[in-house]
């Protein structure tokens, strides 16, 4: 036992141009970890000031005051020669220079800082985020890079990991990670297009998957196209609109501009889910005539016309990528969307048009790459193959209770092995036996589900209705074999059966039953409610009769008669089996019961429980004549639920 090696987790990091994201595999499922500020992604920005270093959102907030020493988009420079990055240098306010071997590096406060060191700062932040969550040190990581990164860029990214104190177990291409997140690695001979439109860059990659190995066939893109361009398009439209209406140019007003910038991003996000959005900015500015408000409606159609050119810019690279992969669009089997901007319906439509295929959705496009990296990390740890393949039960298992209702014991999708217990009781006085009917299925009524077993628990000592405690246990082992036992807690008498998984249903049947359950959901619910009303009324009549008999001497005669008539009404309604009538009679009796309570209180005695307590079911016939003290919380079943929480 002592040689037990401590298996630490390998984290997956999406080291992005604008934002980074970290994930781990937890209990078989990938999980994105939020940073200390609550963000699920962290800006890939590092600010330097004297000896101080700021990373992430804090660095972003001070960027304006410190532009020469705030490094963003360092990914555009990592592993590249100074000569290669001339066009990039023009887009950044900080100083890029070259070191002895001609690599592009940053000059900050007269000192050389390499892109690897900057990336390392971001990686440290991601590492710390994971450590804070896991509560243990993290030393290994999988890091993603764009598919077009060359050896030098990949090596530099690896070096950045080392500087951050991380052993980089693997560098994987971002599109590959996205495909992993969608579980596409389990397929064979597929051509996959990964469309990645993020905060600042657009990448299209064509992958080929053969035997679980991904090969990048072609990449293309636009290194300066992203979400910010879309926000700006909306911002300019708002400025124009305001100018048209009020003749005031807000672009000079920092405060107004700031508010509009936020409003633009908000409107963009909202329009991914709705057709129109209101943009309301009261008191945006003021002139001699008084305050001015910006109030306008932006429709999705208008937004799409504003950003049409931007979306159009993704077409060329896709066509080129297909061409260089030597493929036509009908050869693409799968399309994956990555990056927040792909949430925009117009973008999705464009992708569909380019590749003629419905893209995969479902995984958060901001996180899909990090999730794939986390999965890769788990594969490397051995976690993924090492994990026992735990099965789940496909359909709910339960027993039939009073009124022919299915009372679930083990819900569908519960991971096995598992054990669940519930306590039931009898539905009639001196009931000598209960029948446990084991059912499988999702329908509310017992008869609509499949009966997979049945047995009797006999020789229950005579006792009033609801008193015996019959513990029903469902135990499902790892092979799916179900053991059902029923035990009378008082006498200790027990009965059990073993039901083989095979006696259950085939996969086809399971599907059919699920479908049925969905189709009949409403009517089943109604039927169940009816039975519940019935059981409730029955139980109430029973309690009322009991109270009446017990306190006969202490109650005024007219009240006794009144209550008795109401009890009879309930019984008659039950006999008649008219749900509305039952409900009405139940309510009438319930009111009378309160009067008993009041009368008793006046009498200083204490008649408890005027509250109706819902029923349980009896497989057999409910005995409405039965009498006995009813504890609150008791559900009469065939069998009656005493305690749900007992497991």
């Amino acid at each position, binding site marked *: *036992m002592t040689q*037990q090696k401590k298996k630490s987790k390998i984290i997956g990091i999406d080291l992005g141009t604008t934002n980074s994201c970290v994930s781990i595999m*937890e209990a078989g499922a990938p999980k994105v970890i939020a940073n200390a500020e609550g963000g699920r992604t962290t800006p890939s920005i590092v600010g330097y000031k004297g000896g101080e270093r*700021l990373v992430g959102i804090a660095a972003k907030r001070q960027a304006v005051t410190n532009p020469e020493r705030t490094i963003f988009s360092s990914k555009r420079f990592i592993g590249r020669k100074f000569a290669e990055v001339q066009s990039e240098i023009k887009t950044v306010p900080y100083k890029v220079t070259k070191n002895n071997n001609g690599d592009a590096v940053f000059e900050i406060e007269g000192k050389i800082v390499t892109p690897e060191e900057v990336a390392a700062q971001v990686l440290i932040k991601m590492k710390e985020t994971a450590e804070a969550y896991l509560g243990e040190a993290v030393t290994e990581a999988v890091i993603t890079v764009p598919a077009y990164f060359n050896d030098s860029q990949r090596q530099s990214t690896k070096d950045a990991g080392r500087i951050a104190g991380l052993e980089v177990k693997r560098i994987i291409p971002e599109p590959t990670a996205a495909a992993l997140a969608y579980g596409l690695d389990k397929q064979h001979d597929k051509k996959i297009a990964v469309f990645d439109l993020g905060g600042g860059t657009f990448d299209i990659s064509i992958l080929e998957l053969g035997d679980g190995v991904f090969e990048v066939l072609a990449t293309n893109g636009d290194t300066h196209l992203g979400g910010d361009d879309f926000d700006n398009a909306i911002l300019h439209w708002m400025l124009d609109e305001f100018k048209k209406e009020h003749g005031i140019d807000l672009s000079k007003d920092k405060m107004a501009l700031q508010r509009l910038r936020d409003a633009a991003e908000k409107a963009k996000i909202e329009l991914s889910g709705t057709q129109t959005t209101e943009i309301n900015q009261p008191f945006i500015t003021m002139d001699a005539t008084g305050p001015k408000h910006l109030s306008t409606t932006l429709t999705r159609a208008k937004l799409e016309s504003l950003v049409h050119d931007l979306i159009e810019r993704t077409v060329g690279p896709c066509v080129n990528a297909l061409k260089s992969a030597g493929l036509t669009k009908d050869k693409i089997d799968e399309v994956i969307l990555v990056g927040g901007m792909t949430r925009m319906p117009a973008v999705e439509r464009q992708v569909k048009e380019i590749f003629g295929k419905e893209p995969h959705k479902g995984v958060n496009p901001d996180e899909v790459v990090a999730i794939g990296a986390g999965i890769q990390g788990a594969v490397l740890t051995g976690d993924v193959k090492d994990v026992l393949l735990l099965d789940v039960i496909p359909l709910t298992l339960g027993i039939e209770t009073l009124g022919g209702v299915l009372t679930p014991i083990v819900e569908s999708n519960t991971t096995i092995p598992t054990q669940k217990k519930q306590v039931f009781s009898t539905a009639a006085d001196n009931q000598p036996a209960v029948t446990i009917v084991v059912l499988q299925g999702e329908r509310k009524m017992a008869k609509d589900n499949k009966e997979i077993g049945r047995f009797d628990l006999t020789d229950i000592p005579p006792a009033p209705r609801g008193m015996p405690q019959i513990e029903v246990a469902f135990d499902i082992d790892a092979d799916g074999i179900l053991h059902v036992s029923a035990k009378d807690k008082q006498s200790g008498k027990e009965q059990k059966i073993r039901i083989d998984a095979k006696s259950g249903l085939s996969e086809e049947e399971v599907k059919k039953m699920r479908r049925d359950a969905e189709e009949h959901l409403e009517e089943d619910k109604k039927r169940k409610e009816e039975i519940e009303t019935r059981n409730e009324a029955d139980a109430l009549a029973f309690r009322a009769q009991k109270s009446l008999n017990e306190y006969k001497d202490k109650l005024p005669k007219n009240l006794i008669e009144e209550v008795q008539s109401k009890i009879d009404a309930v019984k008659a309604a039950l006999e008649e089996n008219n749900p509305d009538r039952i409900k009405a009679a139940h309510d009438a009796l319930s009111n009378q019961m309160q009067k008993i309570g009041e009368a008793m209180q006046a009498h200083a005695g204490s008649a408890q429980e005027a509250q109706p307590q819902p029923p349980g079911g009896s497989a057999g016939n409910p005995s409405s004549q039965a009498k006995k003290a009813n504890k609150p919380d008791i559900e009469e079943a065939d069998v009656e639920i005493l305690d749900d929480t007992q497991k």
Partner: protein
Amino acid sequence: MTENAPDPTILPTEESIPQMTLEEKLQECQEKYLRLLAESDNARKRMQKERQEMTRFAVDNVIAEILDPIDSLEGALQCTQSMSNEMRNWAQGFLMILGQFKEVLSNHGVTPFHSEGSLFDPQLHYAIEKEETTEVPEGTIIKEYLKGYRSKERTVRPAKVKVAVPPEQTKLDV
């Protein structure tokens, strides 16, 4: 053919392998079991912690959204000087409504903080503009565009501010 007749050589193997591995297997299972147990326990603790965090973030996030209309109301009520007495009386009422909103915030531990004149701190402030000046020390906040709010342990919304920076010349000397 061969499947029909059991291969005799298998027999010893079948016996010996379990003997060799039974203990190991038990140990492996035990280890796996313990690890699984520990993992599920840890996952439970993490989930608990995360749930607490999430609740806190959720409250903060909702409050952060309410701040926008509060800003608007505040902005609106700053334009009351030139109004008639009747209007001012109305404004007085709205000022009280604003007070009610702020009370809700402070009941949840969210309070505004003053930024102008203090030193820029990226944990609290978001710089959207700078101004070259020597009149105040570098990093001093000259103007607050948007009020910042914080709760006990977190900045709910950073203040958006204008920050003093030294003029180009002096900076080069540094």
